[in-house]
């Protein structure tokens, strides 16, 4: 009985270590899915209603990105979201550097690796496909 309780305690403890973080479990899960070699840097928590009209991506944030670094941008959408979380990054001259959504094919990439060669402050724009309602998290990590 004692051994059984010890095993249960160990299992609970391990589970706690892996998933029982005090912060948002949905964010934790997304962080844990960024890959073994990825090291967490930041996250952006996004919750949007349906867009009245489809123009620019609606959630905007700035972030400094540094030369000689490979960043991984991972997008996770909550199950009840109507659209998929997408990301577009623009530089300080408003030029689109990357987009996780291919308008021509309609393909959405769950993550984008960005090999940065120009240090600066970039504009990160998130939204859900077709301006749909949804909630999700965008995780930024560093990869080798």
């Amino acid at each position, binding site marked *: 009985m004692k051994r059984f309780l010890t095993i249960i305690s160990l299992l609970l403890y391990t589970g706690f270590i892996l998933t029982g973080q005090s912060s948002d479990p949905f964010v934790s899960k997304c*962080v844990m899915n960024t890959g073994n070699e990825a*090291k967490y840097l930041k996250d952006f928590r996004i919750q949007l209603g349906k867009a009245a009209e489809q123009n620019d991506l609606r959630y905007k*944030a700035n972030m400094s990105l*540094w030369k000689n670094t490979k960043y991984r941008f991972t997008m996770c959408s909550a199950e009840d979201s109507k659209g998929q979380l997408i990301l577009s990054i623009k530089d300080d001259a408003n030029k689109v550097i990357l987009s996780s959504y291919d308008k021509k094919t309609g393909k959405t990439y769950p993550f984008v690796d960005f090999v*940065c060669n*120009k240090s600066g402050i970039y504009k990160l724009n998130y939204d859900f496909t077709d301006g749909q309602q949804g909630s999700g998290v965008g995780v930024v990590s560093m990869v080798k």
Partner: protein
Amino acid sequence: MKGNITLLTILFILCFSCRNSSTKETEFVFPEADSIPQSEAEKLSPEAIEDISRNISSPVEIANLLQMLEVPFSSQYLASSIDANKENTTFDKALKLGILGADLGYLNMYEKTGSSLDLLSSIRKLAEDIRVGQFFDFEMIKRLSQNRSSLDSLLYISIDSYEQIDSYLRTNGRGQLSALMIIGVWIEGQYLATQVVDKYPDKILSDRIGEQKIILNDLLLLITPFCNNSPEFSSLCKDLYAMKDNYRDIRIIYTQGEPVASEKEGGLVITQTETSIVEMSEAQLKGLIEITSEIRNRLILND
């Protein structure tokens, strides 16, 4: 004949302007004024302030770069002289909370988590003293520190705790403490990078130090509204402006190019061909190493 000359001129202009656009260079410069007008800094919206605080280069990124360059870990770079029990003012507590946060990032990245327990106690004390201890899950961080396989969770919990503290301070009328914490994080990251480059000269690392010129202006925007709050704030502002002077003639040049895309393992890979190039002399780097060390070592003294 006149028509041919006109045509040739047009072709020449077109060729010249095409070539010019593909190799165009731009440069990052500080705004003209020597100091940021207080009114300009006070105009910053809460969103702009949040953006600035998010922009600050994470000490985790500096530590990651050091690992990439195979620089060995050294505890000598840590602010171990900080004694959380001897900090009297909220100014010192917030600033040192930032400095120790950067040290925690460095220890975590090098997985020297056994050594981080003392540091965590100091962070806990400082955070509780400025009434933000509730955002720092010390027990969880301690447990993750002892579990070497969960680096990503450890980074997540540690960084997230600091971001929650920052956000709470800003939205509860204590923006001056948030600014101090962010500046503490940045100064310690800058200290780490400059100390390492002094010992292990490396172009990539010295470039990263030079590129902090981009961030310094934002930090000044953040701190300027509080520069007249107290002699301590005035002194810190003076230090940051002195650092700005050291950056003034360091140039960051940008060359243009189009990103290259490919697919890998279900994801998209974008390689940027635009580049930033730092033009910084040995003497300018030396100047940055010296001023950073002087400011940081003075800040970590226990009064």
